[in-house]
């Protein structure tokens, strides 16, 4: 100690080089991956699991009697998993196809939402042992005589290619593409119940739906005109996903699933949602308390009494009464998002317009590029980058502020162009008059030019404000639940598409119409200056 040995110097040099390397690699480093996932879960006392309520039953959906409570076999499975880790389970809403991104970002500990095992997923994430073995069921209309078997799909009796609805990116899509290739036309849907509804209505000429069997079992009651065609096909596994860097957490999840299979807890949960079947029994893992294998456990009669009411569509006024206030609450989020983002957008937009019109080249050129870049890229992409890519360079923003920032950024480009037009519409003489009175350019802009331009831009800016209210819907890709997302969740879990849709439309109108009125009045008052 006290003296610097040659080794010490070399160590410092090595450390310096490593640091340099780390800095160089900085943008590619993944900071969200700490590798101590299990420890963090235990310290926090909660297992945060990600799923999308919009996917609905039997996975995760708002309970029928209390829409604030979540139901679904994955809700109960999450409780089982959390319990065996000695923590509580905590749900995090996320758009289904973005759940793995949330995992990478570190917002959730596991993905638990009907994610099928695929080699690619297993390579990228920690994939648990399966908690369910799914199969795919072909569905068609009962009265459709041209589709009675899988054969009719291969060789349509009327010679017309069948149109088959599937959930985009699901196992059903892979199956169809692999085995039927171009013998059928594929139509991509976002929601599972939407696909079934499309078949029932023959919407867009859709003839059939290849659906996960548990979903069909759950929703069967809600679609009386649909029928199962042929036997289930395309067996696969639902697995929980963890970060690749959290093997301890993955091990703990595996242990929990295994023990829930062994002592029958998982069977009881699945049976409750009518999901237990021969395929699951064949795993043959369940033992009695003495450790004896219990044999085939296909008889689910013991559970029938407490079986969860499967999908019943709730319709009419009662559904509006019961779920309406949830939509009103979600509308509050829409208002807060729009009302926070728009002033920011106007401010940034005005600044960019001033840079472009009055700034020196080193402000003018970047401002022009900013406007072109932002205006030329979709909002959803900007939100995605803000939310999922910034954390990779060490900047983490929460969903709400990422949404506000994304909306403000996106709209600022449009406001910049509106303001540019508004500023250019002010006669040059106004600036000359101000300057001849001794105004500096900045003071003339602030006192004379901008106030007049603002009066000109009121109508187009109001227009954009109203558009922004509706564009907040895009924020659901980064887990923000606002009016549209809440509508999808509630409409899909109740089937009250029309009733809740009308309410949602009314709520949007209630937001935008007063805005038009206020803007109209403001405009009239300011225009009055020109006449009186």
């Amino acid at each position, binding site marked *: 100690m006290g003296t610097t040995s040659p080794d010490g110097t070399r160590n410092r040099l090595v450390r310096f080089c490593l640091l340099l390397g780390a800095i160089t690699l900085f943008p590619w480093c993944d900071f969200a991956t700490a590798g101590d996932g299990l420890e963090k879960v235990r310290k926090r006392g909660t297992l945060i699991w990600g799923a999308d309520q919009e996917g609905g039953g039997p996975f995760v959906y708002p309970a029928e009697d209390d829409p604030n409570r979540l139901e679904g076999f994955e809700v109960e499975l999450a409780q089982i998993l959390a319990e065996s880790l000695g923590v509580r389970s905590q749900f995090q809403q996320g758009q289904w196809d973005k759940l793995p991104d949330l995992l990478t970002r570190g917002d959730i500990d596991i993905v638990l939402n009907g994610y099928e095992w695929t080699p690619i997923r297993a390579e990228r994430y920690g994939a648990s042992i399966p908690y369910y073995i799914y199969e795919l069921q072909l569905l068609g209309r009962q009265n459709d005589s041209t589709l009675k078997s899988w054969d009719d799909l291969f060789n349509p009796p009327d010679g017309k290619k069948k149109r088959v609805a599937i959930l985009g990116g699901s196992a059903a899509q892979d199956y169809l593409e692999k085995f039927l290739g171009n013998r059928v036309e594929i139509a991509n849907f976002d929601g599972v119940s939407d696909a079934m509804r499309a078949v029932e209505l023959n919407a867009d000429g859709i003839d059939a739906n290849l659906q996960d069997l548990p979903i069909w079992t759950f929703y069967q009651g809600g679609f009386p005109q649909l029928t199962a065609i042929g036997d289930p096909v395309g067996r696969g596994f639902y697995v929980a996903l963890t970060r690749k860097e959290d093997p301890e957490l993955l091990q703990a999840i595996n242990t929990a699933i295994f023990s829930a299979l062994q002592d029958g807890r998982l069977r009881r949960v699945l049976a409750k949602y009518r999901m237990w079947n021969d395929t699951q029994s064949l795993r043959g893992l369940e033992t009695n308390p003495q450790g004896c294998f219990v044999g085939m456990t296909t008889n689910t009669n013991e559970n029938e009494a407490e079986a969860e009411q499967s999908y019943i569509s709730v319709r009419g006024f009662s559904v509006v009464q019961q779920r309406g206030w949830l939509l009103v609450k979600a509308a509050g989020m829409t208002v807060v998002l729009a009302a926070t983002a728009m002033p920011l957008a106007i401010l940034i937009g005005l600044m960019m317009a001033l840079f472009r019109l009055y700034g020196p080249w080193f402000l003018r050129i970047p401002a022009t590029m900013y406007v072109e870049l932002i205006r030329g890229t979709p909002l959803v992409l900007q939100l995605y980058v803000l939310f999922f890519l910034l954390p990779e360079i060490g900047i983490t923003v929460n969903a709400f502020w990422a949404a506000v920032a994304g909306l403000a950024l996106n709209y600022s480009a449009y406001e910049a162009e509106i303001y540019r037009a508004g500023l250019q519409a002010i*006669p040059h*003489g*106004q600036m*000359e*008059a*101000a*300057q*001849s*009175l*001794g*105004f*500096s350019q900045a*003071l003339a802009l602030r*006192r*004379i030019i901008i*106030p*007049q331009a603002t*009066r000109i831009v009121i109508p187009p800016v109001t227009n954009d404000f109203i558009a922004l209210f509706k564009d907040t819907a895009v924020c659901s890709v980064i887990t923000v639940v606002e009016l549209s997302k809440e509508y999808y969740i509630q409409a899909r879990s109740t089937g009250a598409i029309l009733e809740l849709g009308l309410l949602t439309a009314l709520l949007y109108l209630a937001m935008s119409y007063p805005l038009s009125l206020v803007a109209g009045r403001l405009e009239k008052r*300011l225009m009055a*200056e*020109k*006449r*009186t």
Partner: protein
Amino acid sequence: MIQLKNIVKNYGQHEILRGVSLSVARGEVCVLLGPSGGGKSTLLRTINGLESFHSGEIQVDEIVLPAAGHSDREPALTRIRKRVGMVFQQFHLFPHRTVLQNVMEAPVHVLKQPKEQVRTLAKRLLDRVGLADKCDVYPGSLSGGQQQRVAIARTLAMKPEAILFDEPTSALDPRMTAEVTSVMSDLAKEGQTMIVVTHGLGFARAVGHQVHLLHAGQIAESGPPEMIFENPQTDVTKSFLSEIHQA
């Protein structure tokens, strides 16, 4: 008080001003006459920097305004504009401010004078141009003559040592022209230094102390009005006057 020394300005190949020199004494009413395109307005606007010039020099009292591109130009302009006011052909009142606010705007926000003091001054100035009853209306509802009188009051509120008038009556009909000319004559009587670009020969003759005739970017002739009008020396002046009289 104001000296222009050999002012040159080009637009590309085209020479707008070809070395104009001019001097205006305190209390003088200097009138710039001449055919359209002769460079009168451009010359006037170089004095408070609304137009730049390529060579020469302008001096207002002790302030020296150099040609474009000179680093001393901006600070000199800031000082000149506080001393030299301007009245435009198209008035350029601020449409989003009332008449009173138009007059108060610059003293309050440029000179940072106390509002109440400026309000009293502004009302007095509006009274002087005969518009005391229009304080709270917006410029859009005034006639052209009334607007131009407000513009003059707005300029006077800065207590300028000199005022530049850029064809102040060209956008007005004869009756409104008379309103404005009478206000300008009163100012001249009170000893206000003024440089006036105009086509109004009557005004030049009655009020002007010195008349300069600009033609093709040069001063063709200078002198007191009676000399220019009664006894023009150059062909340019003669043909200009005869054209005006025929029109």
